[in-house]
């Protein structure tokens, strides 16, 4: 890979999935940036709401560690959490979820590693993933490190349900399907045999052998596998100059750490803070 970073490749690829007249959201920096890029580039009516729903339906701004202060100026409403879930129930949410585990049939886990009753590692809890499952058309995921501990045969705790076993219920609302997953190795979907994980594209320089070696099960792949499209010059300009000039995306790279965080923090809090909205 030359001329751009892995994070820039992922943001560009993730941004292509958004459509208009709906919310584009994510709790992670990469998902947030991908929604901002989509709005700046090709989905002008994408409804952005970041960390704080107090500044909802805002314009495209540079990403900050604390967004409210910059977003409030162009925000059109204060979106309540009740309304947020009502929008989800009506299919008006598109989301990229930063998951910790993802399995062969697209189930996801951000709650615990090991047995729930006494976890080997307690993470953050199921949060909104069991809810996004009932309203979103699909749940898309990103994972920073593709390896046999993150891409597993079966997740330890199901937060987002995968394919298989539809439950036999006919409902007016369909459960979200597992959508795309982007990792540091490639782009995948769950359209393989029985709804299993399948290779969509591999990032430049990545081989199928390497993916197989780094995955806890056999990934489905057929025919000529395309290379993940590189970010365009316009996408790179927007990422670097408009939506993330401070480089918060580096927090989701191996460069990320307390030192980078403190550096970003000092630059951000050194800037003048706007008054009351």
């Amino acid at each position, binding site marked *: 890979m030359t001329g751009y970073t892995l994070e820039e490749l992922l943001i560009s690829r993730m941004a292509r999935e958004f459509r208009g007249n709906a919310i584009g959201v994510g709790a992670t920096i990469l998902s947030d940036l991908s929604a901002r890029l989509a709005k700046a580039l090709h989905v002008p009516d994408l409804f952005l709401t970041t960390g*704080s729903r*107090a500044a909802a339906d805002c314009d495209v701004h540079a990403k900050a560690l604390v967004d409210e202060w910059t977003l409030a100026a162009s925000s059109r409403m204060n979106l309540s959490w009740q309304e947020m879930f009502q929008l989800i129930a009506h299919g008006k949410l598109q989301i990229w979820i930063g998951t910790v585990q993802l399995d062969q049939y697209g189930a996801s886990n951000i*709650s615990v590693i090991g047995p729930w009753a006494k976890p080997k590692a307690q993470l953050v809890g*199921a949060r909104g993933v*069991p809810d996004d499952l009932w309203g979103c058309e699909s749940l898309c995921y990103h994972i920073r490190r593709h390896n046999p501990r993150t891409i597993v045969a079966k997740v330890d705790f199901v*937060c987002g349900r995968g394919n298989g076993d539809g439950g036999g219920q006919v409902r007016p609302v369909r459960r979200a399907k597992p959508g795309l997953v982007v990792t540091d190795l490639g782009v995948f979907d769950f359209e393989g045999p029985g709804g299993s994980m399948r290779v969509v594209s591999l990032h430049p320089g990545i081989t199928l052998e390497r993916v197989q070696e780094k995955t806890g099960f056999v990934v489905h792949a057929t025919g000529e596998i395309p290379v993940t499209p590189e970010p365009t010059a316009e996408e790179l300009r927007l990422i670097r100059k408009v939506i993330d000039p401070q480089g918060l995306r580096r*927090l989701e790279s191996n460069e990320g750490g307390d030192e980078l965080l403190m550096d970003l923090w000092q630059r951000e809090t050194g800037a003048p803070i706007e008054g009351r909205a």
Partner: protein
Amino acid sequence: MTKMITLEKALAAVAPGSSVAFGGGGIQRKPMAAARALAAADAGDLTLVAMLGGPDVDLLIGAGKVRELQFAFVGFDAFGLAPHFRKARESGSISVVEYSEATIIAAFEAGAKNLPFLPTRFGLDTDILTTPTAPFRKVSCPFSGEELLAVPALRPDVAFIHANIADRHGNAVIIGDGYADPLLVQAAKTVFVTAERIVDELPDDVATAGGTFLSRLWIDGVIEAPRGAGMTALYPDYRFNLPAVLEYQKRATDSEWFSAWLREQ
């Protein structure tokens, strides 16, 4: 009638073994002054309730006050995991009831409406239904027969919310994200609001500016607590304190550091 009280008086309403809920989320608008004072109070054996727990929940677990936690998330948002929560879960020293965001919102909404439960689809087909402490039941829609999830009402004994401003009658305004607080104040049996400042009457422009207005009819006491959200953010008054958050994460499970940290109010 004034509803202005002291934090000490509010804490006296927290009986041992009662359930205590906190508003805000993660590292935003957490009632940290109340949580820290509760850590120093006598009442223990508490059941904590928080849609999105942060340092409030974490410090009370660390202080040994918590028997059970009802939650959808505990963490420091994009800035790391909660150290005492992790340690307590991994050693099995607290009991937990895991919700999702929308199911705990449904539980608050049922409590707010004085109903025994509310049906939802959120959470169906996931493992939050399979835990030994899961409070949910499956029910059939009496009209269509569709299988739904019944979420029983949550009525916490006491709730603490932090707001930007309140008046002496008990009205309060949250300018930033309201999280589940509007429902929580209606679901809880007793509600205390800590506020950055308390005025005689809320200015009209603040009361109508589009934030979250909490009526005095739901509020039992208001407590003036400047910087009451502690290291967490209160939009637009102050940002979260990143150095303090990182230090807490690194050192909170060092018992000497933690007891000194708890003492500095």
